[in-house]
């Protein structure tokens, strides 16, 4: 075609001259960046994070993530509370898997007192059982809430139904549905209730059925995959350098699980696999969490078979409360009980960093003790805080609507992030 034919065709189609002939108005209407505020009270922000987005149309150019709207001063409160009084504060850190936080704190104090090897086997098994149940509630809530935010309300309700069964069982064990404060330094506060293993086995069978239903709904769902696959991908090197741990790092291919690499408690005695993903996008994170749910069920079944009988608190007068019968009948035990409650457990001066595999990854407690019954410093290494710092890089270049699955799959728990 001759050059003049091309230009006349262009004019016919576009209805105007070439770009140099555009009028001043058209050149001045350059796209502007717009600032949009998401949060701090936003349904998809899981409560309390504010993201100030700078967008070019729908594409995010820059996101300023501002946490801190739930800063409840865990460290300052711990400095004024005894070691046992800190347990309720730890419950409210990662409030979807509270037992794991309790266990983490107990293990940190036991490391300072060199008690780790002397915890009774039954207490360790009970700790692992309730920790895995808490891990299950964490993953059920995370996947359920993310699915709901994408519109899959049914998956949310099914997982909530499964979570209620677990809450009922945890309530039978500890007395509270959500904030248990069940674990103590040296063991756990009381033994498992009667008939617990039959009820837990039945609940696990029911949860397996619920998971089959939800996987059928979500795994090969066109809308779910379109919204999750390829969104928020992170490379392995990025994940390591940003300090990511847990399901997020494992979805990128980082094969790190505290239970396998630095085993604690009775994890060496149970068999389980650690799911590791490849691409690091939201869909991989979802699959890793689903697989971890199945592995937790597997661990629980083994623990129920292997749990021995025995005491549930270490037999050490520095740490354990005396039995109630003695407290009410002998003056020495009453005084010992009194000193434990009022003064707290005397932990020798020193510092230690102890970590467990929380629902979000390596949850660590860095405790500095000064010989009294109150910690001198109790720092929480919270995985959610570290993961939230990567959110800014993850959302850049995506659309506003992609912030929702990215944020959901990071599983930023406000209490843990803002301490």
């Amino acid at each position, binding site marked *: 075609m001759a050059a003049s034919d091309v230009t006349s065709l262009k004019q016919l189609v576009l209805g105007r001259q070439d770009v140099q002939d555009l009028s001043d108005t058209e050149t001045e209407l350059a796209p502007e960046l717009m600032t949009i505020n998401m949060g701090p009270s936003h349904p998809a922000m899981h409560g309390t994070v504010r993201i100030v987005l700078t967008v070019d149309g729908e594409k995010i150019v820059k996101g300023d993530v501002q946490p801190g709207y739930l800063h409840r001063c865990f460290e300052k409160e711990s400095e004024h509370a005894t070691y046992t009084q800190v347990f309720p504060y730890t419950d409210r850190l990662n409030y979807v898997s509270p037992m794991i936080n309790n266990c983490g704190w107990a293990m940190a104090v036991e490391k300072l007192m060199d008690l780790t090897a002397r915890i009774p086997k039954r207490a360790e098994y009970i700790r692992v059982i309730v920790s895995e149940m808490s891990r299950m509630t964490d993953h059920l809530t995370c996947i359920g809430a993310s699915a709901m935010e994408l519109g899959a309300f049914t998956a949310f309700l099914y997982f909530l139904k499964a979570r209620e069964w677990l809450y009922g069982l945890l309530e039978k064990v500890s007395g509270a549905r959500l904030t248990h404060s069940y674990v103590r330094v040296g063991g756990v506060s009381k033994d498992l209730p009667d008939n617990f293993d039959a009820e837990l086995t039945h609940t696990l069978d029911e949860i397996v059925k619920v998971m089959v239903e939800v996987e059928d709904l979500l795994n090969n769902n066109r809308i779910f995959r379109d919204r999750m696959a390829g969104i928020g991908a992170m490379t392995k090197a990025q994940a390591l350098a940003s300090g990511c741990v847990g399901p997020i790092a494992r979805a990128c291919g980082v094969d790190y699980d505290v239970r396998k690499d630095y085993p604690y408690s009775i994890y060496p005695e149970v068999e389980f696999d650690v799911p590791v993903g490849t691409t690091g996008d939201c869909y991989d994170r979802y699959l890793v969490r689903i697989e971890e749910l199945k592995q937790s069920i597997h661990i629980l079944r083994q623990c129920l078979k292997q749990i021995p009988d025995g005491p549930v608190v270490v037999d050490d007068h520095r740490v354990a409360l005396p039995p109630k019968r003695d407290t009410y009948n002998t003056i020495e035990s009453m005084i010992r009980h009194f000193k434990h409650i009022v003064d707290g457990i005397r932990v*020798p001066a020193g510092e230690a960093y102890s970590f467990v595999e929380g629902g979000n990854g390596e949850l660590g407690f860095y405790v500095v003790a*000064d010989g009294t019954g109150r910690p001198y410093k109790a720092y929480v*290494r919270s995985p959610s805080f*570290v993961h939230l710092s990567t959110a800014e890089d993850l959302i850049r270049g995506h659309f506003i609507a992609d912030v929702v699955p990215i944020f959901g799959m990071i599983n930023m728990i406000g209490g843990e992030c803002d301490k």
Partner: protein
Amino acid sequence: MSQKVLDALQGKHGPALELVESQHGDEIAWIKRDHLVTVATWLRDDPAMLFDAPVFVTCIDRLDWRPLGAPASTHWSDASGKPRFEIAYQLRSHTHRHRLRLKIAVPEHDARCPSLAMVWPAFNWQERETFDMYGIRFESHPDLRRIYMYEEFVGYPLRKDYPKEKRQPLVRRDDLPVSTPRFGTKPEGGHR
């Protein structure tokens, strides 16, 4: 557990180290403030060390450090000349499975520390948190501003001399007076 890390560190960067110790199975190396970035970069890049995974950074305020049962010489006081703050960096190696804690002593009158945010991106937000809570200025940090508290907040709350209940409210109801806070009659600095 990672004694060889400490040995390698002493071999390569001996003059930068003040002290090495091991507490409850954790290896701790005290680094001089000015050599921190060099040592950190070496720890990240050296093939035998390969500390590629940062864990946490925080600060310890030794203002009330009077450990029970220890001699009075270990207590902290203004006159003793010991630095008031200790910054602790915890590092982990994913490939070699060893861990290390770096500690830097920081005096009160000169509360600054070189930033490791350029070496490991994870420390960006965590150093902001340490600045917010303790007032330690991290030099050459890309974006040093408060993260947990709001900009109008005055003071550094996790320091031992900041009262726990001293609120600085941003907003109150029109019919409620903004009362001056009463911090209680307990002696400052915790109770014994």
